[in-house]
C-alpha cells in the first residue's frame, strides 16, 4: 500500500513537472499570442492539477489536503477566466491571429529568426 502510494505520488509529480516544462517551452517558442495562450493553459491545468494531486496523495486526508483542493479549485476557475480575458483584450485591441500563410511569409522573409 505504501509502495503504491509512493508510485502514484512520483508519477503525478513527475508528469506534472513534464507538462509544466512543455508548456513553458511552448510559451517561449510558439509564434503568436493566441498559440502561446495554449502553452500557458497546459501549465495551468495539467501541470498544476497533477502536481497538486500528487501533493494531496502524499499528504493523505488532513487539513492540508483541504487547502490543496481549495488551491486547485481556485486555479481551475481563474485560469480559463484569465486566459479568456487575455484573448479578449488582445482581440479587441486589433491583434489578429497569425495564419499559416503569415507564418510561411515570415519564414521565407527572415529565415531562422524567432518571432
Amino acid at each position: 500500500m505504501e509502495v503504491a502510494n509512493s508510485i502514484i505520488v512520483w508519477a503525478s509529480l513527475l508528469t506534472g513537472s513534464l507538462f509544466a516544462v512543455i508548456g513553458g517551452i511552448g510559451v517561449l517558442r510558439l509564434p503568436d499570442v493566441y498559440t502561446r495562450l495554449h502553452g500557458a493553459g497546459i501549465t495551468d491545468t495539467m501541470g498544476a492539477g497533477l502536481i497538486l494531486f500528487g501533493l494531496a496523495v502524499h499528504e493523505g486526508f488532513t487539513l492540508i489536503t483541504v487547502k490543496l483542493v481549495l488551491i486547485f479549485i481556485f486555479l481551475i476557475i481563474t485560469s480559463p477566466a484569465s486566459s479568456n480575458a487575455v484573448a479578449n483584450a488582445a482581440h479587441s485591441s486589433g491583434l489578429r491571429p497569425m495564419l499559416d500563410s503569415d507564418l510561411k511569409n515570415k519564414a521565407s522573409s527572415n529565415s531562422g529568426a524567432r518571432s
Partner: protein
Amino acid sequence: MFTATTIAILLTMSLAIARMCIGPTIYDRVLAVNMFGTKTVLLIAVLGYLIGRPDFLDIALVYALINFIGTIAVLKFLRYGGFGDTHEMDTQDVDDKSNLSDGGPQ
C-alpha cells in the same frame, strides 16, 4: 521527488521570464506574468513540502487570488486606461460581450 518538481517549476518560471522580456506585444507580457504567478503558487506549495513545513499553503492560496485579480486589473487598465471611471468607458467603442466593463465601482 520534491526537488525534481521544484527544479522543473523553476525552469518553467525562467522560460516565462524569458517570454516576458522578449514578448513583442504587451499581451505576451501579461500572459507570461499570469503564468509566472501560477507557477509561484505551485512553487510555494512544493517548497513547503520540501523543507517540511506545509503551512505555506495559506500563502499559496492568497497568492492565487491576488494573481487573478492582478491579471484582470492590468488587462482592464490596458483596455480602458483607468480603473473605475465608467463614464469615459461608455464613450469608447466597446462591444457588449465584454464582461470587463461591469466590474468597476460606480
